[in-house]
């Protein structure tokens, strides 16, 4: 055995989290050393609950930790599956009667504040070294490199190879402040264990990145650390709690970027159980079975080709039998007979984007697996269960009675927020019958009626996965929802409203960035407009729900305005009818710039520039050109509207153009001398009967933007042009049935046509 055995019989094993090869090494080492102490990288505050953790659970499970204080909120998971080296160290250690200790800082500690997954890879810290190794060994990425070096090779000399690997990587990179703090703390545990062991063996299992530092930090014996180090306690004003949650392979595989660890849990579970050769066969079978249930064609010839490709790739790459990437490459070569739209996820370490090839989708699903863990029934319940009951009692909400709330009363408002939070957590109990809604007039009362459900307790426990208290849980839930919704801005706007209802104005920076980011990729101008309108309304008026003027909304408005302007300039279609949805979006932009512009620093000049370009762009649809002109006008940049309207005076575009203009700038149109109306009147008078009929529907829609009062104003103006003296309201009302008028017109036209044909009349009907 060559792994460094420090003085005093301490053996350091540096592992990659969730690596079956490392787990095998740990098991073999425990069996060989029969250590007195097994020290494992994990939350030290859980040392008193080792029995709970090692109970008779079905893996995977995780330790969930939530932490909240005045400035920071943090949730993180420490997942364990059957092949986690940490888990194997604990279970095997217990079997040989060793004392078990977690030796790392608690998950809520500031040194771990950036991590959602304690057992994520540390590889971003030595990306450059990994890149060079990959280039030298001609593999795509760190996962392929890892398989190549450790998982599918023989186990002889595995420990030496691991030590060399991590020494090389560690030698290249400086540890950050957080890592240094954690390593100093872990070293204190190691020193204490060594003194207590008094010459008996001690096994230390940590991430390979930390091993060289721990070896160095524990080299000397300062004699001071006889007692176990104390476990840091959270600040008095902070809330921190850890409890076990059932986990799943899917969630294990779902961490992305810097939080990700070993991918493909289902595959590595097979490697752990049956070895790499059998795992490769099982993977091929699983993919073929999945594809066949999806009615994708997989022939025997294809499978033979896949098998021989995988074998050939394994030989080329120097593997004794096909590894994960060999099998995947073989399958994709044999089964995909199209051009792919995106690179293979195992080559880029990326996630699947929509539109991935079905074969690749099934391959990734087969790798990931659908195993779900289960906790032993005696496992203590998550605190959320108690918190929900306590909160309901504190707010005097009886699960069996309807609740009537007046939102202007402080006590009722907090009760409403609690009910909304439970609704967002999918905890059954009450259903809202009425109350404030998105886009509806403000309602200041709510009514909730009881809706008892048999599986309420189960649902609360599930919700407990989000956090120990209602507030933590609902915050985590909202953040997850925001992530899942991606670019669905409509649903995001609803979520935004929900957060206001649930009283979460300070919902975190992450949520805020997510919404702003999603806004950046919306392509539907209408949906964006609706979202912007909701956000703007909340930002401006919502004193009731406490969201008026808050920074996250402000940032969202800024992002949405910028995106809307970007989208507006990209719409092209020269002869499309007016689209009220996108006109409303521009109205929202106008309102945002007008009312929130100074406070949020919105780019008024940028908006005017876009408006100017769109208004002058002959390839843009007429309604948008009109709306763009209206936008500029309503923002104070008075255009030559009379001239602009002449440019779009064709019967099939005039009405749409006016729709756009009136949607944005109707007040400007009727105020002052209303020169535009004069021109429109002139244009209409010059139209022939047929042209007028073509133009009529769109014109009707356009003037529909005016409320009755302003319509009367328009009528007065038109009357002044033609010198009539009836009250303007008469012009707006038609005494006869419109159908009758239309029939009369049709008769007149037929008569005209006959007269003209017979050469009896060649005048104009004026």
């Amino acid at each position, binding site marked *: 055995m060559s792994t460094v055995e420090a003085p005093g019989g301490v053996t350091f094993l540096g592992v990659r989290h969730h690596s079956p090869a490392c787990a095998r090494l740990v098991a073999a080492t425990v069996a060989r050393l029969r250590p007195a102490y097994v020290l494992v990288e994990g939350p030290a505050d859980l040392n008193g609950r080792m029995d709970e953790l090692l109970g008779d659970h079905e893996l995977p499970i995780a330790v969930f930790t939530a932490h909240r204080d005045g400035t920071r909120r943090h949730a993180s998971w420490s997942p364990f599956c059957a092949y986690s080296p940490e888990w194997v160290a604990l279970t095997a250690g217990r079997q040989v009667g060793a004392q078990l200790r977690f030796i790392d800082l608690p998950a809520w500690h500031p040194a771990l504040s950036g991590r959602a997954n304690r057992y994520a890879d540390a590889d971003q810290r030595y990306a450059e070294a990994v890149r060079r190794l*990959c280039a*030298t060994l*001609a*593999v*795509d990425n760190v996962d*392929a490199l890892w398989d190549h070096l450790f998982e599918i090779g023989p186990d002889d000399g595995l420990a030496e190879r691991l030590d060399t690997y991590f020494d090389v990587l560690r030698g290249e990179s400086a540890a950050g402040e957080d890592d240094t703090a954690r390593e100093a703390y872990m070293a204190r545990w190691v020193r204490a264990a060594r003194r207590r062991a008094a010459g008996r063996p001690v096994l230390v299992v940590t991430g390979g990145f930390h091993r060289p530092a721990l070896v160095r930090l524990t080299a000397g014996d300062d004699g001071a650390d006889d007692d176990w180090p104390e476990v840091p306690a959270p600040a008095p004003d902070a809330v921190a709690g850890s409890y076990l949650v059932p986990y799943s392979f899917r969630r294990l595989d779902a961490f992305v970027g810097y939080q990700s660890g070993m991918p493909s849990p289902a595959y590595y579970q097979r490697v752990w159980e049956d070895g790499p050769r059998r795992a490769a066969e099982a993977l091929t079978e699983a993919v073929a079975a999945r594809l066949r249930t999806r009615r994708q064609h997989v022939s025997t*010839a294809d499978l033979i*080709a896949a098998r*021989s*490709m995988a074998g*050939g*790739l394994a*030989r*080329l*790459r120097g593997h004794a039998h096909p590894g994960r*990437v060999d099998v995947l*490459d073989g399958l*994709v*070569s*044999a089964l*995909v*007979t*199209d*051009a*792919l739209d*995106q*690179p*293979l996820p195992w*080559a*880029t370490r990326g996630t699947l984007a929509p539109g991935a090839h079905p074969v690749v989708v099934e391959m990734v699903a087969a790798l990931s697996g659908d195993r779900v863990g289960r906790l032993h029934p005696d496992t203590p319940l998550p605190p959320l269960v108690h918190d929900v009951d306590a909160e309901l009692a504190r707010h005097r909400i009886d699960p069996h009675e309807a609740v009537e709330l007046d939102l202007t009363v402080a006590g009722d408002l907090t009760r409403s927020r609690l009910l909304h939070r439970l609704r967002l957590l999918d905890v059954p109990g009450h259903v809202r019958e009425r109350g404030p809604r998105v886009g509806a007039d403000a309602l200041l009362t709510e009514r909730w009626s009881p809706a008892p459900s048999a599986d309420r307790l189960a649902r609360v426990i599930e919700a407990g996965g989000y956090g120990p208290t209602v507030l933590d849980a609902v915050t985590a839930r909202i953040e997850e929802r925001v992530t899942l919704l991606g*670019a669905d801005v409509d649903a995001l706007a609803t979520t935004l409203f929900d957060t206001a209802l649930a009283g979460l104005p300070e919902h975190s920076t992450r949520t805020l960035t997510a919404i702003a*980011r999603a806004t*950046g*990729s*919306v*392509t539907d101008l209408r949906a964006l407009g609706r979202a912007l309108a909701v956000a703007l309304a909340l930002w401006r008026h919502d004193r009731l729900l406490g969201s008026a003027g808050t920074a996250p909304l402000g940032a969202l408005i800024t992002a949405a305005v910028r*995106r809307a*302007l*970007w989208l507006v*300039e*990209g719409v*092209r279609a020269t002869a499309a009818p007016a689209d009220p949805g996108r006109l409303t979006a521009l109205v929202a932009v106008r309102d945002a710039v007008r009312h929130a512009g100074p406070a949020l620093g919105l780019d008024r000049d*940028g908006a005017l*520039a*876009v408006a100017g*370009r769109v208004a002058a762009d002959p*390839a843009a649809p007429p309604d948008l050109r009109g709306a763009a002109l209206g936008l500029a006008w309503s923002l104070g940049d008075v255009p030559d509207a009379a001239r602009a309207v002449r440019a779009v005076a064709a019967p099939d575009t005039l009405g749409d153009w006016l729709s756009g203009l009136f949607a944005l700038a109707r007040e400007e149109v009727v105020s002052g001398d209303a020169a535009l109306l004069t021109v429109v009147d002139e244009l209409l008078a010059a139209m022939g009967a047929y042209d007028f009929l073509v133009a009529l529907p769109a014109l009707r829609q356009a003037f529909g933007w005016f409320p009755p009062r302003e319509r009367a104003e328009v009528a007065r103006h038109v009357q002044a042009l033609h010198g009539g003296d009836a009250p303007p309201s008469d012009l707006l009302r038609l005494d006869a049935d419109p159908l009758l008028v239309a029939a009369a017109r049709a008769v007149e036209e037929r008569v005209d046509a006959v007269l003209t044909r017979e050469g009896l009349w060649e005048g104009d009907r004026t």
Partner: protein
Amino acid sequence: MTALDPTAEGARRPPAVERAQRPPAEVRYADELAALAANDSDPRPPGWRLSLRAARRFILGDQAAGIRRKFVGDPSLIDRALVALATSRGLMLVGEPGTAKSLLSELLAAAVSGDSTLTIQGGAATTEDQIRYSWNYALLVADGPSPRALVPAPLLRGMAEGRVVRFEEITRCPLEVQDCLLSPLSDRVLAISELPGADAMVFAREGFNVIATANTRDRGVNEMSAALKRRFNFETVFPIPDLGTELELVEAEAGELLRRSGVAAPPRRDLLEVLVTTFRELRTGITERGDAMERLSAVMSTAEAVSVAHAVGLRGWFLRGEPGDAADLVACLAGTAAKDDAEDLARLRRYLEQQVSRRSGAQWRAVHDARHLLPG
């Protein structure tokens, strides 16, 4: 068997090749191929000049052995391509134009057969004659069909000599013409029905295979017959995934082109960064911030970026005697990126107006200021 002499045709190389504008890969990298072959102890598939591992080193480079890296992309792609060539299926390289598919096919052929010149260029007018064989009509009329009158085309030669045949832009050929590859690929035999006796069948020698390329912008691979698709392993070649690598490549290639054009000033790196970023964003339709936008319908490949960088350098040097600047870039973008497509021009203008204005950096600002140079 035919009377074709397997050694005569392939080994003969006209001396003019050495002075060609662009000699084939096996000439350009002759020393590397020789060194690799000399030190190649791994098993070689039958008919191959190099082992798979040596072929991989030839393409991906090996610093220790002084082999240059010739292709930027995932190593696993090369692995799959080489193994596919060693099996009984052909290799189909698909991807956007300008992703170095043809270069890769040339390198593979040079590594496997030591010869990348058995090439069929697919096109609407490609006929079976150009793929399989045709006749010397004078001899045909005088003597009747005989091996002497036979004029072999690349496919027949590749089969008879045991070499890799390259079929460029296969999807641009009519479907019926594509299908003449079916029996050479599956049964590894080509029938010459005009010849009597044993000469009527040419059996492929070990080492024969086909590398086809197809680009996804023209007629894609969707129209290929299922029967032919099944005889190929498909590999999609993607544009270079990260900015740093692409920037390096563009800088090196454009610098080389400019030197050869007699331009003394190397391209400015900060301007190249703007250029490559612009190309990447217009190609993927996603900005660095993550905003989605419309992709240009024109090809925004690395090769195009190199040619724009070249043009920018030429403009700056020959018009003003200095490296190209942002104004040159905008002027060249219009011609190269937007070509004559009004839609693309509008998209490009929108990009310059709205996206570029939000970037910090002197060159980005300069590009924004020069946006009026776009025509139209």
